[in-house]
């Protein structure tokens, strides 16, 4: 049992980013150009704290807390810091620190930098929430926090069409996935009877054996695949590159897109290990990996190349989770970490290059190493890691992947697929990390004299990340305990015993590595024909991209068609549609369920009741057909009084009294309208075809009512109120006790509605008459 201090601190760690996010605007205003450094204290402090938890975690301590939040719904505020959470939290806060510092310089002249920080930190808060949550709904809430902040950040330059379009696309795809995830999580919670994640994991066998398993799996995958940009949902991620580069580095490569992978990892003890899990994840992951790498070669924009390479990596991670063997899990956590380090670096480098040279188009860049030495060094180290060359950490991760593929159920075919994917990544790495800096001829959008090294706050981040990739490659055992913990949390105890070494000896994996290097080198050497070929194929306008565009425009067409048809502005048509719909639904119920002749309806009637009923009918008909307004109003009054009499006969004195008074006031109101403003009711003739629809609906109502009234009276509620009115409500008039005590909140609401309509009337009379104004 963990002691209290880490649990409290965990709770604070959850809330601090939210608070700092809320304060970002005033802090930025206060510290101006130093705001990045000041705000970075928040993620930095958290990173230090999470780092300090690693030894305790290795000892097997898992701080967790559960606070009752909405107990009736089973929603608890539950946090848990296991190895997987710790690894992700360190990546989130560590990268967060560097990105916040970087953004402080990158966006220094941006007019709403404070707001940018607010959203970025809110995203970080949501992301931390995802990895710390131990309740599926808390996880979902944080999940949507990241979806929404990502939407805002992608569209941050909202004056540009492309940014708005991309933001909308990202929101549509990921939020739809979020809905799917929510349904999946709710089904899961309903199945195991708890929303607690650790509780769900404990009940894993129930889930896997349930007939609902496949539905839950597909729904959860819908959420994870959209978030982690798996084919065919990947189209939003390249679009997300319209966001400021620090956002791309942080959200769209290192953290948020890994939320889907994290979710799969988190739930793999529950959902994993079945044939459907294995098949779906392996196939989707492999396809995404290969196609992503291929698509990366079809672009010359640094960020787009990186985005497609990210898609490819996400595919690899999903594929590994699908394999599910201990080796695959170990490879997954290792490669996830390696990727976060090198891809974060490369994005920030791309941002610096863009910032200093004015272009991100790789064909217009070259020979920059002299002008941006620090950036170039960081880029080189990261590119080597991405290519999977020793002694960088990327090499360690890639070797593990090859070994896992060879040893796993996928075997050689999967390993070859991975080789192709990595080949594409090698070419992409050369393109982004090497090409702009290499070569003798200087090329940039700005003249050579204006291009110089980025300021320290913009190279310190990439440099540190790249250095981390190098150090971890040389001494991989330094991070081994943390990764091993995470692997155990995903794959169970048999996934433990991770041993990271830089050199594995000459193995088939090494051969595959060499193969991917040759392939990648070849692709890079042939980059012009490859680029031309891919452009000619125009892959991105087919398939999912085309589907997205077509469905979006179809949706817009559908909604404008619906608006045109339904919102015509003709009150008469609205009313007819409403009545017809109501009647249609009733008719459906009658046809499906109530076809029999109603039986058992009480038919006894007393003479004076007949008189009253006839009075009601006559006054209703009179009110409808009379051409004189006065007759109509009086008929209405008579109808109300007859109704009140019915209430008297059948034991409802409160209703009778209210009805009489209301009817009096109604008649007064009608009279006032006609007296002050003698609008004669429109001349109309009774037409049978106009009457047909109302008559049909009236008949259906009667028919239904006869069936319902024939059902034996349900007395439980009535008995409850009869027994509880005096002891519980201290009142003899049960109707009133219900209104002001048992259901007082309803009454309060209705009173508020009434008062609001009074306010509406008041406002209507305060607005001056247009006609009068024009005359004046």
């Amino acid at each position: 049992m963990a002691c209290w201090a880490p649990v409290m601190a965990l709770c604070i760690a959850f809330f601090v980013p939210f608070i700092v996010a809320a304060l970002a605007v005033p802090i930025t205003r206060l510290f101006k150009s130093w705001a990045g450094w000041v705000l970075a204290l928040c993620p930095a402090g958290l990173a230090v704290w999470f780092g300090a938890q690693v030894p305790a975690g290795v000892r097997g301590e898992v701080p967790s807390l559960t606070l009752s939040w909405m107990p009736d719904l089973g929603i608890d505020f539950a946090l848990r810091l296991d190895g997987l959470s710790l690894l992700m939290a360190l990546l989130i806060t560590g990268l967060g620190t560097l990105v916040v510092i970087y953004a402080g310089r990158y966006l220094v002249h941006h007019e709403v930098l404070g707001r940018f920080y607010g959203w970025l930190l809110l995203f970080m808060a949501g992301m931390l929430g995802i990895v710390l949550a131990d309740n599926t709904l808390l996880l979902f809430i944080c999940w949507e926090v990241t979806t929404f902040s990502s939407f805002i950040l992608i569209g941050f330059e909202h004056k540009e069409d492309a940014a708005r379009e991309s933001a909308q696309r990202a929101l549509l795809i990921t939020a739809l996935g979020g809905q799917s995830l929510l349904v999946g999580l709710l089904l899961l919670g309903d199945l195991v009877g708890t929303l607690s994640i650790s509780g769900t994991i404990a009940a894993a066998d129930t889930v896997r054996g349930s007939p609902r398993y496949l539905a839950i799996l597909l729904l959860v995958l819908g959420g994870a695949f959209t978030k982690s940009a798996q084919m065919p949902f990947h189209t939003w991620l390249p679009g997300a590159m319209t966001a400021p580069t620090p956002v791309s580095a942080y959200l769209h490569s290192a953290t948020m897109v890994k939320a889907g992978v994290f979710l799969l990892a988190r739930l793999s003890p529950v959902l994993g290990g079945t044939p459907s899990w294995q098949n779906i994840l392996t196939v989707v992951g492999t396809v995404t990996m290969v196609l992503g790498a291929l698509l990366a070669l079809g672009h010359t924009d640094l960020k787009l190349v990186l985005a497609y390479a990210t898609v490819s990596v996400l595919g690899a991670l999903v594929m590994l989770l699908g394999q599910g063997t201990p080796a695959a899990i170990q490879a997954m956590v290792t490669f996830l970490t390696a990727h976060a380090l090198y891809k974060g670096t490369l994005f920030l480098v791309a941002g610096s290059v863009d910032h200093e040279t004015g272009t991100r188009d790789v064909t217009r860049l070259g020979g920059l190493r002299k002008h941006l030495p620090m950036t170039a060094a960081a880029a080189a180290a990261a590119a080597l890691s991405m290519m999977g060359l020793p002694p960088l950490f990327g090499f360690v991760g890639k070797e593990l992947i090859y070994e896992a593929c060879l040893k796993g159920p996928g075997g050689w075919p999967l390993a070859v697929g991975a080789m192709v994917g990595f080949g594409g990544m090698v070419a992409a790495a050369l393109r982004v990390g090497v090409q702009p800096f290499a070569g003798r001829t200087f090329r940039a959008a700005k003249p050579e004299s204006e291009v110089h090294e980025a300021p320290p706050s913009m190279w310190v981040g990439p440099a540190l990340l790249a250095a981390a990739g190098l150090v971890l490659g040389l001494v991989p055992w330094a991070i081994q305990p943390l990764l091993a913990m995470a692997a155990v949390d995903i794959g169970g105890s048999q996934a433990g015993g991770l041993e990271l070494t830089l050199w594995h000896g000459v193995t088939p994996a090494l051969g595959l590595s060499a193969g991917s290097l040759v392939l990648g080198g070849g692709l890079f050497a042939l980059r012009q024909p490859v680029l031309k070929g891919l452009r000619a194929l125009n892959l991105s306008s087919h398939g999912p991209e085309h589907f997205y565009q077509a469905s979006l425009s179809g949706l817009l067409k559908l909604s404008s068609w619906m608006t045109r048809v339904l919102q015509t502005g003709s009150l008469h048509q609205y009313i007819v549609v409403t009545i017809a719909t109501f009647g249609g639904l009733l008719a459906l119920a009658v046809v499906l369920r109530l076809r029999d002749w109603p039986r058992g309806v009480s038919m006894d009637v007393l003479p004076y009741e007949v008189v009253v009923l006839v009075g009601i009918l006559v006054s209703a008909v009179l009110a409808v057909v009379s051409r004189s307004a006065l007759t109509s109003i009086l008929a209405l009054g008579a109808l109300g009084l007859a109704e009140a009499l019915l209430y008297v006969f059948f034991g409802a004195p409160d209703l009778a009294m209210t009805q009489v008074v209301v009817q009096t006031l109604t008649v007064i109101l009608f009279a006032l309208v006609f007296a002050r403003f003698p609008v004669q009711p429109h001349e109309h003739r009774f037409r049978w075809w106009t009457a047909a629809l109302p008559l049909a609906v009236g008949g259906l109502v009667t028919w239904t009512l006869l069936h319902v009234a024939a059902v034996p009276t349900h007395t439980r509620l009535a008995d409850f109120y009869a027994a509880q009115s005096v002891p519980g409500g201290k009142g003899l008039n049960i109707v009133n006790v219900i209104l002001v005590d048992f259901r007082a909140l309803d009454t309060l609401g209705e009173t508020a509605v009434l008062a609001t309509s009074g306010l509406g009337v008041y406002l209507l009379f305060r607005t001056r008459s247009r006609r009068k104004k024009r005359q004046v």
Partner: protein
Amino acid sequence: MNPVVMHTVARMMAPVLLLVSLVLAVRGHDIPGGGFVGGLLAAAAFALQMVAFGRSAARRQLRVHPTRLAAAGLLVALLSGVPAMLEGRSFLSSLWGQVPLPWSDGLKVGTPQLFDVGVYLAVLGTAMSFILGMSRGEETTAPELGR
């Protein structure tokens, strides 16, 4: 109807109606009645004044702006739910007590009665804003609903 008779009836009836409406509102817990019907009856009493003596007389007798009356009623109804919260029970739970009186063993008072009074005021205010608003007729361009 003869206006003299009308005036006399209206003058005599108004206090009676108002009294009855109040009794209905406060005693509604035990006999038929309650805040809704009480408030409506009070509005009817003022409507009678209006029919007999004209709109401005009725508005004068109401004394308070009808919208304010409705708002005050809503506030009273809301506040009647608060004491229960102070006792740790949920909002709008009822609290009852006995007020000792010399001539009987005690008068039953409770927050639901306060709630009913709130409903009474809200309904009265709303109904009066309907009636007064509607009867303005041609004077509608004046900016105030009241005077």
